[in-house]
């Protein structure tokens, strides 16, 4: 199985704060693939709300997303879109 890696930038005003973090985790849960987020040297499971919180990704932070699993393409597309839309905050 190949792994998909994407780079995204956090666009949201207060970064990945409570609301976008929740949206991210809820969406990630829809896919079977494993999903990891890396910021600098910190790598967390993207399906874990607490993990995403501890990332403390402020606006402008560049994150590396990894998707691995049978539906990795769909997952990658959906999650990258979420980041690009700023999690529907505007």
């Amino acid at each position, binding site marked *: 199985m190949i792994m998909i890696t994407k780079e995204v930038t956090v666009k949201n*005003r207060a970064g990945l*704060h409570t609301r976008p973090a929740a949206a991210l985790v809820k969406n990630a849960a829809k896919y079977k693939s494993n999903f990891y987020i890396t910021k600098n040297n910190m790598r967390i499971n993207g399906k874990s*709300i*607490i*993990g995403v919180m*501890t990332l403390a990704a402020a*606006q402008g932070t560049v994150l590396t997303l990894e998707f691995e699993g049978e539906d990795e393409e769909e997952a990658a597309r959906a999650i990258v879109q979420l980041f690009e839309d700023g999690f529907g905050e*505007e």
Partner: protein
Amino acid sequence: MAKNDDSSSIPLTTSNGKNGKNEKIFRGIAAAPGISFGLAYVYSQMEVVIRRTDITLGEVESELLLYRQALERSAEELEKIYDLAKEKLGESLAEIFQGHLMMLHDPVLTEAIENRVRGRLNKAEYAVASEFEKYASRLRDSADDLLHERMQDLEDVKNRLIRNLQRKRLTGTIEGGRIIFSRKLTPADTVLFSRHNVLGYVTETGGMTSHAAIISRSLNIPAVVAVPGILNEVNDGDLVIIDGYKGLVYINPSDTHLAECRKKIAEIENIAKKLETLRDLHCETTDGHVVELAANAEFVEEVEYIRQQGADGIGLYRTEHLYLLREEFPSEQEQFLVYHEIAEAMHPRPVIFRVFDIGGDKVLDSSAREGNPFMGWRGIRLLLDQPDIFRAQLRAILRASRGGNVKIMFPMISGLVVLKAAVDFLDGVKEELRHEGVPFDEEIKVGAMIEVPSAVLIADVLAREVDFFSIGTNDLIQYLLAVDRGNELISELYQEFHPAVLHAIRMVIESAHRNNIWVGLCGEMAGNPYATPLLLGMGIDEFSVIPSVLPEIKHIVRSFSFKEAEELARRALDAKTHEEVREWLIPLMHDRFPEFFTTTMT
């Protein structure tokens, strides 16, 4: 956030009180207004002590079952709290508990806990405590305030889960009509207690902006927070009075204080009934002179309360907290979302956004501190030198102005050149937006804050450049009288009725009206009920006050005729000293409004 000094755990006074017990009075931060008395309920959150206990291999499955049952019970509790919070507080504050639910069900955490039980044969409660602690310590180390708040949430979820593992009931039964004393209060505690007809909250920690304080205010339950050491002083069942206006807590109050308190409560109830009827009425004198009555605001959470209080708008929206919360200037988009939310929530009533009024110490590093920051690089002076910051904020405000109810105000205006520079800068930003095709209110109104004495003296010149003035009395009085109100040695020289202050206000009003612009007053003086008839009579067009006093000020305005207010204003302007004004004004107001001035407003 206000700081309390360490001395507040020492009783302010002690004297012989009821039943031979000593009356003790403590001061904290007044976090939610109201007065009540009743018996103390000392709520000690269990200090959950979890010792490492291991199980045998044969016990693994039953231990995991216990863990899953505890998860389920915790989730049920949280769902209930969420529903209750949604009903009592509305969706946005209730979201805290949605967050708790997500943490509870976090798959990574759950898996780690289960693995620990299976692999290391830890008892579930120890596994829960250890796994939560891993994350908590990461959040604790972070410098980010918001993350600290999240850590509190994580802690709440952990404690809930462990309590359910230990099969303890929720908080036991709180008898109705108690005043809760606690080290701290979680948002969940605050919501749940409110079902038991809680009369008030006193906590050792917290501040004005903690979740619990905001929730108490929306639930209308008096609260005093940041009273360190109070738990060592109060016993379960002690008779206590809590004054959420002044931030005072009386333990074993004297008969005198108790009688005073009963009287105040009765009066407050009466007033509240009376004032309710005012909510939808204009702020209008008996002879038909209408003024705007707006509120000062800082947080999105306040808007609901402000609307309930019947405000005509927000006369001063302070934007500094956006910076102070994060120790860096928020982005345009981040600001836009906040401004947009406020403007929408108040629509069609106006919202006046004051651009960042912060001092140079926030931008300069500590080696470049100014000797006299109050007369230094602050407000508009700083913004004009930091065009990126200024541009981002103006763009955000302009973008939020599409609904047509947004106005902009510049602080620290001391002369025409500075004001013109600010207005020109704004015009440049508008042009940018037009060029980009970004819509905003082309008719947006711009005002100058009048808070520097020089601006008073040249108000005529300034009035030609703007659409309105707003007099910031807090700073104006300090600058005019050269009195730092925070300096206890001279604080009695800070005088709202000093003739220089009254004449300055009148000059500004006259200059504004001569130039056909309106003028408001957004300092604390606007919410001082004694000053109401004087300001009204001098011709102020808008009062912008702290939301809690809004109905009282409206009631006072509605009780005077404009003619009478004008006479009182003239009389005050003729006085030679602050004391001379107070000598007749105070008895006059007490006579006129006996119900108010014995209570909360002094």
